[in-house]
């Protein structure tokens, strides 16, 4: 007889549940798909290092039973860079949100993609700043409402998955929380890809985005997402007008490129006939 509790609870810090996330928030779904992705990629949970910045999405590492670093706003990718270079055996995963990754941390995001450092970045894009109370974010669709855009935003949003692919990432994909099996497969591919991997998941924030934009319940939000999703392969056959306000999902990059930490290792090997030593801080002599 299998356990009567959800299978995902085994991977979580159960003493911290229930989570702080609002009812119907997509972040919980992404926790599940991440855990399933790790399992399908056959990674060791003790070898995972989860890094995050500030925001709702960045609370994920605090709930998963593994080493986790909850850092300053927007800087998660820079902390992760240090962690990965210092100990390249770790599977470093960054959980970040749209504000965290694209606004305050935009520079770190594109530079990590440029370096093609072996990190997996899971960006939970809910198009709004949830933790601070519903301000508009760099990915809020044009015309959407937020507490700092009471008359609707006039800014153009970022297309994160395309941006990161253009900046040089070797894997980049976008899905929605509803395309849950795609998310799982994408996370699995991202974890296995030896290079910078970016998975953007469009998620629902019924509490703020929904309330400000007349999509009050989680089900309203998710059915809106369902009706407005277009696969990347369909795009060429659609007119610009048909594509307006649509969420384009699919893989935007999936290539092989030289990886940053491997290059550092090669350099170290050529100068000292050994890879960088790990856990060197614990050595008594050098």
């Amino acid at each position: 007889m299998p356990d009567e509790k959800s299978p995902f609870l085994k991977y979580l810090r159960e003493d911290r549940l229930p989570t702080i996330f609002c009812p119907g928030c997509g972040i919980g779904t992404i926790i599940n798909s991440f855990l399933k992705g790790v399992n399908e990629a056959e990674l060791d949970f003790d070898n995972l290092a989860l890094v995050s910045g500030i925001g709702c999405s960045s609370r994920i590492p605090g709930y998963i039973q593994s080493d986790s670093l909850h850092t300053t706003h927007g800087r998660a990718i820079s902390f992760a860079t240090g962690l990965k270079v210092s100990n390249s055996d770790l599977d470093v995963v960054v959980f970040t949100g749209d504000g965290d990754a694209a606004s305050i941390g935009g520079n770190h995001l594109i530079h990590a993609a440029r370096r093609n450092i072996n990190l997996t970045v899971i960006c939970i894009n809910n198009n709004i700043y949830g933790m601070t109370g519903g301000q508009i974010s760099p990915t809020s669709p044009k015309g959407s409402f937020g507490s700092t855009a009471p008359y609707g935003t006039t800014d153009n949003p970022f297309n994160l998955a395309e941006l990161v692919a253009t900046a040089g990432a070797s894997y980049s994909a976008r899905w929605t929380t509803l395309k849950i099996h795609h998310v799982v497969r994408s996370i699995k591919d991202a974890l296995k890809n030896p290079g910078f991997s970016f998975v953007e998941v469009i998620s629902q924030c019924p509490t703020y985005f929904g309330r400000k934009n007349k999509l009050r319940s989680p089900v309203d939000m998710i059915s809106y997402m369902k009706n407005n999703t277009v696969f990347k392969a369909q795009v060429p056959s659609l007119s610009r007008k048909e594509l307006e306000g649509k969420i384009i999902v699919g893989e935007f990059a999936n290539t092989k490129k030289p990886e940053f930490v491997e290059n550092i290792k090669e350099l170290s090997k050529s100068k000292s006939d050994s890879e960088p030593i790990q856990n060197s801080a614990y050595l008594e002599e050098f």
Partner: protein
Amino acid sequence: MVKELFIQGNEACAEGALKAGCRFFAGYPITPSTEVAETLAIKLPAYKGSFVQMEDEIGAAGAIIGGSWGGSKSMTATSGPGFSLMQENIGYAFMSETPIVIVDVQRGSPSTGQPTMVGQGDMMQARWGSHGDYEPIALSPSSVQEFFDFTVEAFNLAEKFRTPVFVMADEIVGHMREKIIIPDKIDIVPRKMPESQKDFLPFKNNGINPMPSFGEGFDIHVTGLTHDERGYPDANNPKTHDTLVRRLSSKILDNKKDIVSTQKDFCEEADIVVVSYGAPFRSALNAVNIARDDGLKVGSFKLNTPWPFPEAEIREISKNASHIIVVEMNLGQIYWEVERVACSNSKTHLIGKIGGEIPKPNEILAEIKKVGGN
């Protein structure tokens, strides 16, 4: 084998870092600290370490904190503007008790100021730069040899107390060339891995805790939020916050005896004491020697560790001295600390030289003679 070298201060800093076990450096180019990064970029691969040039100083500070949790002694080097950018992550390092070393080769400030000229305007930024209550450790070298020694000491203090340590050098010490002696054996403090994973509390309310690295199965959660002994956020609990922040302060203040370092020359009977740190100490000691030749009762007091501030030592000095002259390259930062401690016993005077030049011995001598009544 003892090595004798004739090198620049910034190069000596890099040598010191390598000797102390630094195997991860992340930085961003900024005058006048670039030679530290350049030297380490050449040498780290041969020492089985890693060098990363980050996209900005904020990223550099983040990367060394990540590097430290990855199990390497980590360092960055910068100057005033970069130090300003790093402040948020410095606060994070204090809160998460991450040992890192930040070298600040100070230049003329505020803002972009005088990139190639000397200044000591970052002293209070090292003390209060990040928001909140914390107790920093800062070392100020006044010669190339000291830049080497203090960098080693900075790593040792960082590991010993699980805290960020600043090396507050200045452009003169950074760019000056002098002979230095690198001893054969250098005492270094290795990090301690906790013994057992069972019931391990990484942030136990009991002084300084051993620090595990990531990937060892400790399932540690590191956060900048107010956290309990397990490391889990508990930000709405006044008691957790009070206990945590008081412990972080007291782990430095209770160990002041082990941290504070000063250099006293002729202070025992001195009526006038010249207090200095960093490059101006060179002029100060020179002026004191000349004044003593003239028969004045003058002493020199040097702060090797401006932070934590050596209050007890300054108070002791002030009991005998009727005048204390503080020499620094700003308009009064450490001066006010000296004034705070010594004002009930001695009169304090400031020689605050800005503009990118070191205070010259004759300027200090003139002040000594003025307050000495000659």
